[in-house]
């Protein structure tokens, strides 16, 4: 009961805050303002969960429930993603048939750069995510691309995330109307209800983080991608951001889109940008 009333109080105060904020911004509603959006987004969670340390939000459900956090810390002593991490490290160093390696495709040899992705690519005019960049690197070197939802991609992104652990998310939105449009499109996707269940991402991850859907505790949307890719006991295997988006869609009975389609790239852009300043905690272990 206690959480119920806290939730009510939280959303009440959020509504008041939102109301106070909207009046001046109504005029500027059509102009996309990522900085203000990010600030409002973060404050919503900081006020809703005042006793959760800001950097702890990246631990998703574990920042919301002590018993789950204990189970998680126990697993973190020898985490199940250990194998994916080692496989990723080995794959990252193994040269392609043409002798080049992933290091040649990425700044700083691909080490410690996960916090800069997804990036807006001015040439292409679209958002490029880390998974997309990895496959483009493979194709540029004559190798077949990996599936976005299978283990190879998860191992590679696990290793790259590991090399960025602790660095703060640092997504940049250039003053380019197409980048602002991508951010807005991602935001729209995040709040749009879909599937027969008629849920949007926000229905679960904004309105009721910390609540249970059967055995699982819902993660707050703030910093929800910082620990990606994740080893999920549910899948007893690794999952990339693409796999998570696809399965989340099917849970609401919405037919998922193609992995790395524009909507997914844009919503990843939105979710990563609003989490700027929070640490990278990948690869993660989740229920």
């Amino acid at each position, binding site marked *: 009961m206690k959480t119920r009333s806290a939730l009510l109080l939280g959303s009440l105060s959020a509504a008041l805050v939102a109301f106070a904020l909207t009046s001046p911004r109504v005029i500027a509603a059509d102009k996309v303002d990522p900085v203000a959006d990010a600030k409002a987004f973060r404050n919503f969670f900081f006020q809703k969960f005042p006793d959760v340390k800001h950097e702890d939000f990246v631990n998703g459900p574990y920042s919301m429930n002590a018993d789950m956090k204990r*189970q998680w810390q126990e697993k973190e002593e020898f985490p199940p993603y250990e194998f994916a991490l080692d496989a990723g490290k080995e794959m990252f160093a193994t040269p392609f048939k043409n002798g080049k390696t992933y290091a040649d495709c990425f700044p700083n040899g691909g080490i410690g750069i996960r916090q800069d992705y997804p990036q807006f690519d001015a040439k292409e005019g679209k958002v490029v995510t880390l998974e997309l960049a990895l496959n483009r690197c493979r194709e540029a070197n004559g190798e077949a691309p990996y599936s976005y939802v299978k283990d190879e991609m998860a191992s590679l992104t696990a290793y790259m995330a590991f090399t960025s652990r602790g660095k703060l998310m640092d997504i940049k939105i250039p003053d380019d109307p197409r980048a602002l449009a991508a951010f807005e499109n991602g935001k729209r996707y995040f709040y749009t209800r879909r599937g027969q*269940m008629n849920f949007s991402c926000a229905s679960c991850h904004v309105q009721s983080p910390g609540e249970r859907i059967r055995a699982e505790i819902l993660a707050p949307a703030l910093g929800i991608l910082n620990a990606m890719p994740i080893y999920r006991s549910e899948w007893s295997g690794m999952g990339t951001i693409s796999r998570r988006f696809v399965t989340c869609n099917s849970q609401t009975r919405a037919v998922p889109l193609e992995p790395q389609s524009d909507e997914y790239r844009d919503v990843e852009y939105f979710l990563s940008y609003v989490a700027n300043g929070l640490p990278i905690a990948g690869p993660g272990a989740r229920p």
Partner: protein
Amino acid sequence: MTTTTGPVATRRLILQGAASVAMLGLGNLPFAATPARAAANDKYPEEAFKQKNEADAIKALYGKTAEPSDKVKLDAPEIAENGGVVPVSVTTTLDKVTSISFFVAENPFALAASYKIADGTIPGVANRLKMAKTSNLVAIVEADGKLYSATKEVKVTVGGCGG
């Protein structure tokens, strides 16, 4: 249904699978004459792992019954994060411990794991077990020839909102 087997479906498949195999298992139960209660020597306690319920499994493994004791400290979650990976550990202040075992009453086969503790090894173990559904988790410690037990209920259900 979604392209990959949804989490709900796999749970149902596990349960259906359990029923069919159980029938199969009964059919060809070897009635070998070897004494069921092989002492806790090196041999793999095949018989004990075949027992369905917890009481038979304990008898098959140790040949005696256990009495609850607060010297056996069993640590397991209230609600399992996921039935496939349940972190469980046991420690005990009893001495001359020779064996520690874990039983999940509601699993298709009750005995989950059994450890032989050599002298000089600290009597305690942590591992990750699978639990088919909400069940009593029983830890048994064999110390100086007598059995002591601790029991805790762990709630298990699937996650997610359906799909």
